[in-house]
């Protein structure tokens, strides 16, 4: 059987983590190809429905990443995002989604190295968890 290759959806804020991803790219740092990056203006705009949709469509993991405390360009979007992630990490496990599948990180614009480490580590974790139930079955 070929090795399970997870699909990971990543919501990166334009000002910090996305810039770090850009930097990682231009510095030729590699990161797993499993990650599908969606650029957003701020983690504060990630409505829970985006994350729920990703999981129901078969994502094996979702990573939301934005600016460090104090660096959010919209002042406190990252703190609001943290509450929403907390909320979803309470709701989704009830329906059989391991809470390890949903992660929040704060990665600054110059942290390209850190970002590529995080992406590798997260991908490895998701590989260990195995495919999400939504990948294999019909979702109503």
């Amino acid at each position, binding site marked *: 059987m070929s090795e399970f290759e997870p699909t990971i959806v990543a919501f990166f804020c334009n000002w910090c983590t996305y810039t770090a991803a850009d930097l990682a790219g231009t510095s030729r740092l590699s990161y797993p190809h499993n990650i599908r990056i969606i650029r957003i203006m701020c983690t504060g705009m990630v409505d829970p429905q985006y994350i729920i949709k990703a999981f*129901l469509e078969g994502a094996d993991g979702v990573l939301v990443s934005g600016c460090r*405390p104090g660096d959010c360009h919209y002042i406190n979007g990252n703190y609001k995002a943290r509450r929403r992630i*907390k*909320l979803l990490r309470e*709701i989704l496990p*009830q*329906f059989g989604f391991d809470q390890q599948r949903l992660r929040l*990180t704060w990665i600054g614009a110059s942290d390209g190295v850190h970002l590529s480490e995080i992406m590798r580590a997260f991908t490895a974790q998701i590989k260990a968890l195995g495919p999400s139930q939504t990948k294999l*079955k019909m979702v109503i």
Partner: protein
Amino acid sequence: MTITAKIDLREQNPLEALQQFFAGILKLEDIAAILVPQRLPTKNTVMPTLVTDASFLGCVDPLAPAFPMNAARIASRLTRKPMGGKAAAVLRPCEIRAFIELVKLKQARREDILLISVDCLGAFQNREYSKFAGQNGTESTLRFYKNVMGGNINEMEGAEFAVACKACEYPVSENADIQIGLYGMKTGESILVKSQTEAGDHILKQLNLPETNEPSARQAAINALISQRTGYRDDMFAKTREASDSLDKMTAYFSNCVNCYNCRVACPVCYCRECVFVTDVFNHDPYQYLQWATRKGIIKMPTDTLFYHITRLAHMSTACVGCGQCSNACPNDIPLAELFRTIAHKTQKIFEYEAGRSLDEKPPLSEFREDEFKEIVGID
């Protein structure tokens, strides 16, 4: 400061006493109208009515086990802008809690409304109620009152109370300006009237009712009721968790859902003016369906059923007051209130929030603290 008074019943009839009490309030200078449930001419239907003339209070029936809608929505319609006078509103405790959530969401105003609540006896689902009430609704309400006061809080004449009511641990409102007490009072003899705020005081002062002390039996009766209901509730939580803890089980749970969205229309706290699920975002292009179907070889139509329910949970479970109107509205008898309460209990707890408890607590998703939930940031 608080005024506690007693009203003696004539011919063991609490409805007549309530009617007179509400008429007294409506006649006061400061009250322009009263929103109160009344029996409509069909006899077995009780609906909120807005009354300005006390001679139209003849069919008042806030004790009927009928709960056709959560009237917090109606109270919000009446208060979102100044009405040109102050209204009194007779609401169930869960309606008051929903109203408080709506005030926080700026969809209602607390200023121009006097909140009156009667100890809640519980209710049936709509369908059960019309069977139960038969041709003589008023008489059925009096039977119901005696039945609940006698300790039967789950079932009557072969009909089960709504699950939401059996699991409700808030039978008495703490946020009403005036609370009307039944529990712990002698059935058929008297009811209690108590002000819980300055506004309530101000009204009761003008009515000159005979003052009394709250009987000690009252708190004991309420506590006993709450503990029975909490027991039922915890049992319901456990069963619901077990029935929904995987994708397969959720699929079974919602397999009858036809995406009619009645549950969100009936929900007093699903707060969006226009729900995203009824916008064009969900009016998918035909080719999109084909693509989705091609991916796994099959999709269920209509699509987005779990997406809708889980999103709704994420959006509003922190505001869920457990009124059960979602279940009441579902054409296919999906046990929505059970699931929403089960999840809401968890989501409100993590933010140390209780929907409808206090106007001073902000909705949890509208605020944050810098030093909280640090453990969820990072990936180890």
